[in-house]
């Protein structure tokens, strides 16, 4: 199976990849010279799943004759891969598995293929009031929560509780020793992400300490830290409005031998309803939950933290230029709902 578009053959597709042209895609990407010849890749685990989804939505399968001249000029092979996010209808867990595409094998050195299922566990640290351990691919994080305990004597009296966050890296977390230099701003980002969800009135005059240690950094560190921290707070019995879950999306300039538009299908909680969101950028590719190599190729990113049951966003961080921010938000948001419903 391949996409014949500007003479490219997708040698690296997974078992089921479908190239279609859609009217909708043409409207959104705004300006493809051809007759809506924007490719959409549906990546699924098995050929059967792709067939079913395709039938369900009634997509037409057609090749893009001629190809888009604009894109043809910009084609360049860059060794970047992407990870699929698969949602199984039967159970609500979400699994990240690397594609079987050869692009991915270039990124993952032999012997370092990440385990496929994410791990989230509470009670990792016995000395703490609450703790959690999270492992997503190669990113491993431990978070401990202490408290509510007495505030430092220097602090003034306060009616509401205080939250104190600290994120640090081990020296061996990054491939180059001692490079966890972003950790200062991560502490304040974590603070802002969590403070919206914690009921601070429930522990006046005292402080809750949240300490995170990143054992190994494989990309998307901060979203994993935030999600793990909310789980640790729940384990400690701190009153919260809801758990928070976080996801990040990186935008890359291209993807080799793969089309310009990525479509992700989500199944939510076993219903037949499928939420799908399209990205609009022509020639750009969006990678969900990027690994560190994918992050190094990014030219824009979006990180969103939200509370799933209440549909509220506690934090949104965007870097780079985004032409249709509504879209990105919708997509990430929908993704994150599905993920957090899978997690908690």
């Amino acid at each position, binding site marked *: 199976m391949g996409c014949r578009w500007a003479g490219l053959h997708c040698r690296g597709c997974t078992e089921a990849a479908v190239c279609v042209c859609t009217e909708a895609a043409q409207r959104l990407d705004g300006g493809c010279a051809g007759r809506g010849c924007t490719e959409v890749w549906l990546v699924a685990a098995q050929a059967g799943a792709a067939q079913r989804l395709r039938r369900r939505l009634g997509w037409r399968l057609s090749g893009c004759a001629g190809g888009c001249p604009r894109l043809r000029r910009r084609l360049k092979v860059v060794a970047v891969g992407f990870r699929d996010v698969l949602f199984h209808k039967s159970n609500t867990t979400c699994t990240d598995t690397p594609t079987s595409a050869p692009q991915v094998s*270039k990124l993952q*050195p*032999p*012997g*370092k293929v990440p385990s496929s299922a994410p791990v989230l566990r509470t009670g*990792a*640290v*016995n*000395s*703490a009031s609450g*703790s959690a351990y999270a492992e997503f691919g*190669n990113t*491993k994080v*431990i*978070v*401990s929560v*202490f408290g509510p*305990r007495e505030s430092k004597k220097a602090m003034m009296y306060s009616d509401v509780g205080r939250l104190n966050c*600290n994120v*640090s890296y*081990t*020296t*061996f*977390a*990054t*491939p180059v*020793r001692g490079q966890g230099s972003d950790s200062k701003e991560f502490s304040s980002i974590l603070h802002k992400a969590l403070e919206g969800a914690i009921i601070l009135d429930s522990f006046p005059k005292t402080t809750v*300490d949240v*300490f*995170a*240690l990143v*054992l*190994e*950094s*494989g990309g998307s560190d901060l979203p994993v830290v935030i999600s793990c921290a909310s789980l640790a707070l729940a384990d400690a019995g701190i009153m919260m409005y809801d758990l928070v879950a976080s996801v990040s999306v990186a935008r890359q300039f291209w993807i080799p031998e793969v089309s310009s538009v990525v479509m992700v299908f989500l199944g939510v909680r076993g219903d037949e309803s499928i939420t799908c969101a399209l990205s609009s950028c022509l020639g750009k590719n969006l990678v969900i939950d990027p690994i560190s190599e994918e992050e190094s190729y990014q030219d824009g990113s979006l990180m969103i933290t939200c509370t799933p049951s209440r549909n509220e966003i506690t934090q949104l961080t965007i870097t780079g230029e985004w032409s249709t921010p509504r879209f990105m938000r919708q997509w990430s948001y929908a993704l994150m709902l599905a993920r957090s419903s899978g997690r908690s």
Partner: protein
Amino acid sequence: MSSTNTSSDLSSEMEVDAFRRLFPLRFHERHLLESIRPDARPLGKARDTSLALGAVASAHGSALAKIGCTTMLAAIKMEVMTPTTESPDEGCIVIDFHMPPICSPIVRPGRPAEAAPVVSKQLSDTILSSGMIDLKELSLVSGKAAWMAYLDIYCLDADGALFDAALLSAVAAFSHLEIPVVSLNDDGRVVVVSEEDAGKLEKEAVNKEKRKLKLSTISFSLTCILHKNYILADPTAEEESIMETLMTVVLDSSFQLVSLYKPGGPVLACTSAIQDCVALTRQRVKELQKILNEAISDMEVD
């Protein structure tokens, strides 16, 4: 007198947890009279120990050791450096012990724990002086390039006997270590060959394949608490905070004494107490050797 009377009256009415918090020493002594400890261990028995090698994929050698609840993660990263002129064909090992704030309520981000530099120095003295690793094995090109091994040990959960768990994880990390392949690049410098390029190597590699470090003798340790005439092996953090006299004995695999460390404390150790501690350590070394060998063979099977 009256205070002890009132406390003994109170003690009959109080709950166990409250008594444990208010009169910790009496709580533990009542257990010691029956030759048992609050977690149902006999006096000379250590807690359940487990070991996992290769916990961290980004390091060249790593191990996670757990003694009871005390958890230590050790990882080794190798870098190429130029050796000193006094010892041109020897590499170097740098050992560092960290107690991050997650491990215990006493540690705060700005203020490192008191125990951390003590254990760090103890570890580096023990490992370097025990002769476990021959530094000449870490040499690459005599006088020009040698390996610098950075061993970082992080305490993930501090529940007593920190030195024992740290030494166990360090030793296991060295057993797991695989020295990466290097080659000379165009400038005549030795660089580490990354794994992606390993297949298409035009330059000749200085060492052809990854090799494991040869450990001549492996040291294990046991920390004991001396209290009155009791000897408690492998204390928990609660026991350490109440009964303050600790003694650490380090033996190597042929049961020779590598190090004996008794940093003061209210109880003085007589010869028989020291001999008893060494005997307990000897038993513990046998257990730990078995655990380490099982962990290594599990790794090899994988």
